């Protein structure tokens, strides 16, 4: 094909530009301009005193970055940023793989032929429709030590534990935020995996059966590899959504006013408090930029791992 000059190609596709123009303008205003500003702000000493100066606030160079990365006694670090980072790490890994695990099991159960499969599928999705803030409120109530249903079931009904544990104080807190997130998140993964399962041709399994493959072997050698495009995408989404998870934790602890504790704080809630409750806008922006760079790195690694299997249409 002969090379067509750029000008011709632009002219030929001019309608496409009309179509994307409003979106482009909006994204420029609300995505691009703020992003550039945020990166610039991360070098500024923006706080409650200099907020009126906006972009004319004093330039502090890499001060915030140094504070965040290397100075454990800095103002932004002492409010528990490192604990939040540790929690976010554990939280993201457990939730991402937990939701895929639960979603896969239920998807396999639903990928059989039985009466009422549509009803079951619909009912299973319900917990995903519950808004995240409701999830936070609801589980906050269910985790209550004395009046919560979880402790009631663990102690009074089943007798698994002798004494009612505190869920919203101490190391248990991490589980108290992981479990609701998995509860809220897995149906989405289930929908995706189920769609993936239904795309696998039945003939593969028939062939495997003739060769005498067990159910486990069928899963190991047919289902799991063929689902790879789906779970790869789900890992991608899971990593991003869970690192940036905010609503559930925010609503679960003190309804936004309180500190979720050393074991309940996530990066987003921590930086959010540092930025808007402690008025450290510059430092908050710096933390966000670091997080963004980290996420882009992770996504690039993800892309390297799965690039052969996945061809995301661009």
């Amino acid at each position, binding site marked *: 094909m002969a090379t067509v000059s750029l000008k011709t*190609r*632009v002219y030929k596709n001019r*309608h*496409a*530009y009309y179509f*994307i123009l*409003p*979106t482009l303008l909006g994204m420029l205003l*609300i*995505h691009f301009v*703020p*992003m550039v*500003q*945020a990166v610039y*702000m991360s070098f500024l000493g*923006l706080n409650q005193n200099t907020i*009126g100066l*906006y972009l004319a606030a004093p330039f502090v160079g890499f001060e915030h970055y140094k504070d965040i990365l290397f100075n454990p006694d800095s103002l932004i670090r002492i409010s528990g940023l490192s604990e939040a980072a540790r929690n976010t790490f554990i939280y993201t890994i457990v939730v991402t793989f937990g939701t895929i695990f639960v979603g896969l099991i*239920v998807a396999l*159960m*639903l990928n*059989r032929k039985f009466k009422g499969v549509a009803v*079951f599928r*619909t*009912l299973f*999705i*319900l*917990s995903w*429709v*519950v*808004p*995240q*803030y*409701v999830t936070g*409120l*609801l589980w906050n*109530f269910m985790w209550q030590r004395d*009046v919560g*249903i979880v402790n009631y079931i663990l102690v009074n009904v089943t007798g698994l534990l002798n004494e009612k544990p505190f869920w919203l104080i101490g190391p248990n807190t991490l589980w108290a935020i992981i479990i609701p997130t998995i509860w809220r998140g897995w149906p989405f993964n289930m*929908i995706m995996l189920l*769609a993936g399962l239904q795309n696998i041709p039945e003939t593969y399994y028939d062939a495997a059966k003739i060769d005498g493959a067990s159910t486990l072997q069928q899963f190991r050698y047919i289902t799991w590899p063929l689902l790879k*495009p*789906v779970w790869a*995408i789900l890992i991608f989404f899971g990593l991003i959504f869970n690192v*940036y998870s*905010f*609503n559930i934790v*925010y*609503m679960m602890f003190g*309804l*936004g006013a309180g500190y979720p504790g050393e074991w309940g704080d996530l990066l*987003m809630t921590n930086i*959010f408090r540092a*930025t808007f409750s402690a008025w450290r806008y510059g430092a908050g*922006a710096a933390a*966000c930029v670091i*997080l*963004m760079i980290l996420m882009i790195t992770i*996504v690039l690694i993800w892309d390297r791992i799965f690039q052969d299997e996945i061809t995301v249409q*661009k």
Partner: protein
Amino acid sequence: MKSNKVRKVVKRVVIDFFMVGALITTLFPIFWMVFTSLKSNNDILVGHMGFTRKANSISTIVKAGDKIHFGSEDGFIGQVNSDNTIKSIFDVRKYRGMSAVQKDGNILFSHSYGVSSIDPFTDKQKLLVDYENVPWKYRHNIRSTKIVSVNGKFYVGKVLVKTESEEETSYKGAEGFEGLQVFNESMRAIGSLDTADNLLSTTIYDMQSDGQYLWIAQPGGVSVLDPATDKVIAQYTEEDGLTVESIKSISIVGKLVYVAGLNKVFKIDFEADKVTALLLPPVIPQINAIVADSENVFIGSSNGFYVFDLKNDQILTKYRDQDVYWNIRSMRIDGNDIWIGTDNGTVIKLDKSDDYQVGFRAQIRTGAYDIRWENYLDMWENISFGTYLKNSILICSITVLFSLALSTMAGYALSRFRFPGSVLFSTSILSVNMIPMLLFLIPVYLMFIKIYDVTGIQFIGTYAGIVFVYSTFFVPMSIWILRSFFVSIPIDIEEAARIDGCSRWGVFWRIALPLAAPGIIATGIYLFLVAWDELMFATILLPQENSFTIPLGIKLFIGNHQNRFDLIMAASTVATLPVLILFFLVQKWFIKGLTAGAVKG
């Protein structure tokens, strides 16, 4: 071969078992949310897991003919037969709170829905007075406290109660439904009295007539009403020596009036205008009812029955042994018999001449389960939930409209054209997800402040600001979903239309849009769900209470002054309902749209 078949069945049953288990586990929290929203907050805070039963205390005992009748708090009216059995005459659970008076051989029962007349011989019941003008919102909260007849007039005391605390706090906008209502012989309302007519309060605990005047027990003391003029002619309050906050019960013997409140009983001599307190030992807790005769005052307290000997000025404690340990609600004296109605629905007869032995005892049915539908009404009173709901719906709908307009066009362009920059555009759409929202929020917030400083246009706390931000923020995700919808529409039709001379815009508007309608609707619903759930931007950009969305408003249920799990759960249920309905409406397209993007992409 046969064992293979058995194994298959077993496997199937095991999987089914686990699937149902998983379903129950998943749905349980949702069920628990709805369940808790119907419980009373007191039950929640003391850790009752199920519903408790409402009290079914015997609130009134009356004699008609030669038979004793009684009415309970939970709408039960019974009659004690001569063979010492109880006969149910009338049982309507919605008739909350009972009080009774005799009228021409019939009994008038005053309750939360009006006044019913019952013929004790034929058991025929008729609703004489219907409180039909009570606003539906307060229907559940109205209680009739007492009905009394003096000089051919009937006086009914009404009060609106807050169900949670059972405190006598007025609801806003419910004026005119509390206080004392006056009816004539044929039960026509002929007037009403409240604090403007010098009553101490609109709340009325007890009323008795001495044949001439009406004595009204109230928070603050006792009012004496002259039925001839319907004017308050005297009041006994703290200044006159009634040293308790409110008077709960009145008993009149001849010219002497005994009144009781908290743990004290006072004797009022109306003619001498003198108040004296009876010397009660401090062991008596809350007194709920008293009756008196010329020698004794019988005291019904929350831990039992006491007899006060007026001659010796002391309590005859020997009549309060362990099995006379009732929480007494109402009493009536009838010759030698003292009738007692307790809190848990027991009717007891004590024989005065026989050393106060229990001559009769019967228990009526338990109260109904205390299912608090009114939590869903209280929720709107407690915080201005309506405003928040309105804000949420408006913000989300406008956001959906705007971002759909943007993203259908962009999605269409991406699916139909391979223009220079299309790769950059779609890559940037995907990678926007990798940037934390907070990174945008900080500059947007500071930018809005600056804009206000410079131009005076306020974006913080207004729909305009939040809608503008939301519309653009949710666009990338919806472009991604919509693009796959447009890809799945065959391009042939559009090409045919182009040949027929349709413009690019015409093709998009007349052909592509209608064909992609299911996808567009599904995407719109998805956008609505996401916007409905947005919290971080709303917290910062909507700081004033009148611009709150639901999640910000719900926070007010747990604050310095309250800890209302019941209302939080009710509000959560209401907040979940719209998205649940929307989801069910478009479930099929919705799942298709989501999976088409990921699985094929």
